């Protein structure tokens, strides 16, 4: 058996195929970990922007509050914002859950209201306070 033939034999052996599977599996695992790391990269936001029909108002996420917008209530609690009451028929905004990371948003199409967490581009921190 020549050296070349020996190489071919090893290449086609079941053990080599198993190694291929292991290498491909490892690659997939690494890619998955990378994807998760990138997806969860957004930091905790410091403010929330509430846009009602084009008009935007900003609120600090560090103080608990209930902001009443007529059609719906936005509750800010423990650094998270969520729709706590809604009068729209589908109630999807209420089911959207809580948002706290920069870039996360809740959209209520019937009411034309968008609630999004700032932090990356608008506010990174806040100073002062209200009373």
């Amino acid at each position, binding site marked *: 058996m020549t050296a070349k033939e020996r190489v071919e034999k090893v290449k086609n052996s079941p053990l080599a195929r198993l190694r291929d599977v292991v290498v491909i599996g490892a690659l997939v695992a690494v890619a998955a970990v990378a994807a998760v790391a990138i997806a969860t990269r957004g930091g905790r936001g410091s403010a929330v922007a509430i846009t009602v029909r084009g008009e935007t108002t900003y609120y600090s996420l560090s103080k608990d509050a209930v902001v009443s917008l007529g059609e719906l209530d936005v509750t800010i609690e423990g650094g998270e914002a969520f729709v706590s009451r809604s009068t729209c028929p589908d109630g999807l905004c209420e089911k959207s859950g809580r948002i706290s990371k920069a870039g996360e948003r809740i959209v209520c199409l019937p009411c034309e209201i968008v609630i999004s967490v700032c932090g990356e581009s608008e506010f990174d921190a806040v*100073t002062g306070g*209200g009373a």
Partner: protein
Amino acid sequence: MTARKIVAAVLVALISTCSCLGCGRGYFVRSDEVFAGYVLDVKLRGGNEEGAYEAMKALAGEVDASVSLSLPSSVISRFNAASAGERVKADEHACKLFGLAKDACERTDGAFNPCLSALSEAWGVDNAGITSGKPPENFPTESEARTLGESADISLVSLVEEDGETYLVKSESAVTLDFGGLAKGYIADEARAIAASYGVKSGCVSLSGNVLVFGENESGGEWGVGVVDPRSKFDQICGFYRGGDFSAVTSGDYERFYEAGGVRFCHVLSPFTLAPVGVERTESGFKQSDDYVISATVVGASSATCDALSTAVAALGLERGAGLLERCGYDGIIFTSSGKMRTVGTFKFASSRLGYTEYERV
């Protein structure tokens, strides 16, 4: 097989590098109470982030142990209790803060006065008084306040060096010190130096609203710091400042205050009236001033200076306060109780259509 292995190894290396780059762009984010109700929030990127954060926490603890008026063992508490001529050993932080306080007092012509601790206690607006939530049994009379004001003079305090140690000495027993209007800014400035020594390239350090930023934010742009409307119920943000390296500090009557007879007594004292900012004496008691500073945000390079200047602006009022900022080359935004607003430098404004307060720009 060998060739395949090499290709696979290169691929794995490439993918892990990419994923690491992805992680690297994110910030090391931590939030922790460092001392009595003060929360240190940090976002750091580059170098030894964890090491820098631990060093910042340790620093905040050290400064509190040195200057806290609630700890009887602190350098400043012992100094306040000492009599004239008695030497009180001062650590590095107390020495540096003394220098900063003296400079700030001179720079503001006394509008920032670091010797009002006894007066704060008399008005019940010191930490213990505010925490109790109740006004003092007896408010200081005009002559009592004047007596306390007479010894509120930093030139009666000196640093004495002997055998390699530094001591704080007063020439009058009644002199007291209070670095509360500077300590958070000092911690932020020192935190910036710590970050640099740990190789941290970008960051945002906030000590209960005393903010300092450097480098670039998460999107690789300039940092944005929002200013909260002082009369909003829900911390609505009305203005914001954008920049690369700066600090933003706010003083006002919106926190740490008590109310008595419908008058708000806040923790910021005026060295001119020797009463809390916004409080005036009447024949029968006290009333709220018609127009006083309810929030003064100061923006500039040094956080300790911003801290001192914001207190000075609150005491000086809108016009003179804005003048002081212009002279010092610091930016700021000032709100008054009658709904006036003045900016020094470039601030951006959020829409106030949904807002609760309409401020008139003056």
